């Protein structure tokens, strides 16, 4: 079945496993979030740049506007999903130790969720007050 010129490693042959079968899903989600980000990025940058140096009340008025808040929330979710996928690829490219790789991929997920949760909570609190 396997010739000596096979590209598979001996360990890979013994395990008899293929890929984890989630590569297409990863690729596609990266592209879907990228398409969403093209539009959302421009809006996000416009909001942030226009608020630099503005007083609190002005920032509150802009960030709590429903349309701005919804678009900022969408950018947050699409952005952190996209960046988590991208960083996972970087980790898988450069971190070769199995244990360290799993730890790094897991830490990457935690980081993305923490950033996402912080931004979503802040945006909702700005909108709903309290």
């Amino acid at each position, binding site marked *: 079945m396997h010739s000596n010129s096979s590209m598979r490693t*001996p360990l890979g042959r013994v395990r008899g496993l293929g890929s984890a079968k989630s590569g297409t899903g990863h690729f596609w989600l990266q592209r879907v979030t990228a398409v969403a980000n*093209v539009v959302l990025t421009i809006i996000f*940058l416009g909001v942030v740049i*226009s608020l630099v140096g503005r007083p*609190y009340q002005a920032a509150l008025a802009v960030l709590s506007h429903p349309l701005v808040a919804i678009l900022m929330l969408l950018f947050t979710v699409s952005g952190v999903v996209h960046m988590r996928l991208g960083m996972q690829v970087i980790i898988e490219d450069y971190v070769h130790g199995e244990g360290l790789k799993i730890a790094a991929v897991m830490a990457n997920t935690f980081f993305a969720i923490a*950033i996402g949760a*912080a*931004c979503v909570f*802040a945006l909702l609190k700005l909108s709903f007050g309290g």
Partner: protein
Amino acid sequence: MAEVKQAARPLSPHLQIYRWSWTMAMSIAHRVTGSALYLGTVLIAAWLVAAASGPAAYDTAQWVAGSILGRLVLFGYSFALLHHMVGGLRHFVWDMGHGYDPQTRMNLAKYSVAVSGGLTILVWIVALALR
């Protein structure tokens, strides 16, 4: 089990072997900007959380963001974001099966610098004019 012969696995030459080209530089730039943006989200999250924490925390964050250094970082962040976005548009062209011949590849790489630079300045002008 029969003795498994260790195949001589090929190694590809590494980065320093190659002459620098536009396509190579833009490929690396895409990954570098992606990593920078990843870290930059900490600043964005901190700014939003400060705003949500009330006027005092917001004023502190705004003092940092509104300083010369803060504005420079935001300008760099916006350029990194738009460069990464334009690099992504290049990937969409390739995903559709176009732009693989050498001349187009090179042009796409060169123009991505000009387009993202121009786009950054345009976004800043529009954002500052709208406020």
